[in-house]
């Protein structure tokens, strides 16, 4: 029982730290980068009033969102209208339970993992399961609003997400064939000495990347919120922080997708420069910090790529989107699995 208490205390501390990270890194920094980069691409200045270089802009935005009037249309179903943003944000946060931010640190003879449950045997499937549950937030949000735009946006979004989930799952099978485990930490450990999985799974990575764009509803797959036709899509009838929760979840999901791609294909927390250069021992705080910074840099590069694509590529048409998912990505993903199998059997 005391062991149980210890686990709860440890989890609470880690969860609070991770939540702060999500809010600051993915929420604040993500939004700031998105606004600054979009401004840069469109030859504007972007936020520059609140704080130095406009860095405090995201915090001002959050404060504003909390103080905004919270409108619920009379025609809406109030229970599900409230439940939808909770599901979306809750699921987006829960995924971080299995993401390792580094190997481990030894404090007072205890090996503390840098992550809540990174060694869970089913970690990577947990991420997929949570993504598939996240669909409910969008579906319920659109349905409960009782607004035509919302419902159409939710429908499109759900159909899109479930279609690309298939390619994502199949791309993952390729990685699993190389790794032979479902534990994320184990997959990362196998990629030591710069044997990143991207070398063995280049096609798989591209498939995963495209599917990740569609799963996060980011441009060029942002049809659920295609402004000219659907206003705001499934979140049209949301205001105040409830809208902010959808918004935050979108950025958290972008961060999650980036993190998963880094973990699966780019060596995760494996350091960018060998830890031996600084004389760091395994388990020391120095090495853990170096791992965390390396992981963070890799994620930020992925996030920057997400933002760059969003502001450079036009939106797909809906039939093009469904065709890409079902008629291009799905066969390619199956071919990737078969190809990986044949090559690794021949090399054996």
């Amino acid at each position: 029982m005391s062991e149980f208490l210890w686990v709860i205390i440890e989890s609470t501390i880690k969860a609070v730290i991770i939540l702060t990270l999500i809010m600051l890194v993915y929420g604040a920094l993500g939004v700031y980068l998105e606004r600054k980069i979009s401004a840069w691409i469109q030859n504007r200045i972007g936020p520059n009033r609140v704080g130095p270089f406009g860095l405090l802009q995201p915090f001002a935005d959050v404060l504003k969102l909390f103080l905004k009037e919270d409108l619920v249309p009379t025609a809406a179903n109030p229970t599900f209208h409230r439940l939808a943003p909770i599901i979306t944000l809750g699921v987006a946060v829960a995924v971080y339970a299995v993401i390792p931010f580094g190997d481990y640190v030894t404090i007072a003879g205890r090996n503390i993992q840098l992550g809540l449950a990174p060694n869970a045997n089913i970690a990577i499937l947990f991420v997929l399961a949570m993504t598939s549950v996240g669909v409910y937030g969008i579906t319920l949000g659109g349905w409960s609003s009782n607004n035509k735009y919302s419902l159409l946006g939710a429908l499109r979004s759900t159909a899109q997400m479930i279609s690309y989930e298939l390619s994502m799952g199949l791309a993952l099978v390729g990685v699993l064939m190389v790794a032979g485990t479902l534990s994320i930490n184990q997959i990362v450990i196998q990629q030591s000495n710069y044997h990143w999985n991207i070398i063995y799974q280049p096609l798989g990575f591209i498939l995963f990347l495209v599917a990740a764009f569609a799963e996060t509803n980011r441009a060029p797959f942002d049809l659920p919120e295609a402004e000219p036709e659907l206003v705001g899509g499934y979140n049209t009838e949301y205001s105040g922080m409830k809208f902010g929760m959808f918004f935050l979840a979108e950025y958290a999901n972008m961060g999650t997708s980036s993190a998963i791609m880094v973990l699966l294909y780019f060596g995760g927390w494996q350091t960018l420069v060998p830890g031996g250069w600084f004389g760091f021992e395994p388990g020391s705080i120095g090495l853990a910090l170096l791992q965390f910074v390396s992981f963070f840099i890799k994620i930020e590069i992925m996030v920057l790529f997400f933002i760059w694509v969003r502001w450079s590529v036009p939106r797909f048409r809906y039939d093009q989107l469904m065709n890409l998912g079902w008629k291009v990505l799905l066969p390619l993903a199956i071919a990737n699995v078969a190809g990986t199998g044949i090559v690794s059997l021949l090399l054996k």
Partner: protein
Amino acid sequence: MSLEIILFIVLGVMGIASGFVTITSKNPVVSAMALVFHFFMLAGLYLNMHAQFMAVLQVLVYAGAIMVLVIFVIMLLNLGDEEKLKEKFSIRTFVAVLFGIVLLIQFVIIFLASSGSNVLKESNIGSVEMIGNELFTNYLFPFEAISLLLLAAIIGSVILAKRKVD
């Protein structure tokens, strides 16, 4: 009481409660969401029995795929006023109750027959590696048969939907 027992009781009670909401609620969306919650509780029970792979599949397949389909159906049918659906005593209800009673008797028999010795002890029977090994050696034929079943499901769904599209 060990942690496993406490978790079993908590998950079991919450699972039964959500199952009860599923069948008694008048609003089909409430029923569906209660069922999703129920699946999460089931996943928790699987985890408690060290069947991690089963637990995650429970969420991935049932909560993530099948219930999405159910939600779609609810939206597609647009069951506006559920009160209208109230049916009188019919042969269908009678058969349903009959089957329910049979199932209950079965449960009682199983409970009485088991002496508690066949309760699953700590093992890795639910791990992915175990399932992979078993499925592709001892249960290879059933596995291939499943592909035929899934093929039939694909064709069936297309025929079902196409009739309405054309």
